[in-house]
């Protein structure tokens, strides 16, 4: 059940001389506006210091529904931070903080494809910044939860107000967390995984 080699990339996966198979990699995506605490959250729970790599992000005009055939899209290179949690020797969880600036539009399919789920981080002082992420996960039908980052322990709006303002439906979990706190980030990610489990169960044949 470990990573089954794909026909395109796995041509050499079955070399008999391999010592131990690599762990099965799974990933969660952490999204939200710029400066909302994505890297802080990754760093709070990752077992290594967050790493940065340059990723190519396809930039699209906001509000375009069919992203794949947009003629005017361009590719922008942005820094992407990520962290790692070794679940056990055979399973590794990667956390990718997606570049969240509005002007990059939302086409990080490249990073999000195959994610177990997503956590959208919200700063209640700048609610607008996370609309794109919420829309994206809804549109892509990826399990997700919304977590309000309580800067300095303060949340400026009631959760009901936040839910109303973001227009997220009742079945999307909405929590408050502290991106600097390991346990708090862990619990927020567990909320995402609960959504993923519920989704997987509902997809199972009865």
């Amino acid at each position, binding site marked *: 059940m470990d990573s089954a080699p794909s026909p395109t*990339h796995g041509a050499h996966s079955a070399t008999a001389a391999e010592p131990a198979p690599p762990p099965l*990699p799974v990933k969660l995506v952490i999204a939200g506006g710029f400066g909302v605490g994505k890297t802080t959250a990754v760093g709070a729970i990752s077992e290594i210091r967050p790493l940065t790599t*340059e990723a190519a992000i396809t930039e699209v005009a906001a509000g375009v529904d069919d992203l794949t055939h947009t003629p005017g899209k361009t590719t922008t290179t942005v820094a992407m931070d990520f962290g790692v949690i070794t*679940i056990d020797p055979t399973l590794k969880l990667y956390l990718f903080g997606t570049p969240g600036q509005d002007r990059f539009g939302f086409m990080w399919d490249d990073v999000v494809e*195959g994610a177990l789920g997503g956590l959208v981080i919200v700063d209640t002082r700048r609610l607008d910044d996370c609309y794109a992420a919420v829309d994206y996960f809804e549109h892509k039908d990826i399990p997700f939860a919304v977590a309000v980052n309580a800067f300095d322990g303060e949340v400026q709006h009631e959760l009901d107000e936040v839910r109303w303002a973001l227009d997220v439906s009742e079945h999307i979990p909405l929590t408050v967390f502290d991106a600097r706190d390991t346990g708090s980030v862990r619990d927020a990610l567990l909320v995402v995984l609960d959504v993923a489990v519920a989704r997987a*169960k509902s*997809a199972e044949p009865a």
Partner: protein
Amino acid sequence: MTDTDGPEPDDVAAEPSPTEAPEPTVRASAIRPFLLTAGRVAGGGTAPPLPVEAQVVATSDGLSALRALAFERHDIVAACRRPQSVAELAAQLRLHLNVVRVLAEDLCTAGHLSVHVPDARTVQDISVLRRVIDGLRAVPDSRGTLRDSS
């Protein structure tokens, strides 16, 4: 590779910028990397690009051929003595993600690397999700000092 911090790219050291303070973090150059791939970009063909989390491991053939490999190809195979993701490889070697994708696919074709792409059905696999949940629950309320990746 024994260097825990990854190699310094040659071009950074060679860049004459006497008046400017050095950048705190070295960013991969946007132009030079694609010279390495002869201008090719990941996913240019019919196959989808390697997932960022795909695991890359050096084969014994790759390790024996290490002396014959130069520059980035050498660095990639050497770094892959230990399995790691495409993203970790890019970060460690300070290469653009898509450059690593192209080179890793080349090296895989040449038999120097094996690339393990996760099954798309994993996201719906409840047993995997449960293992992730159990693993996360085991994370303590606070982490000690983070170690740098090696």
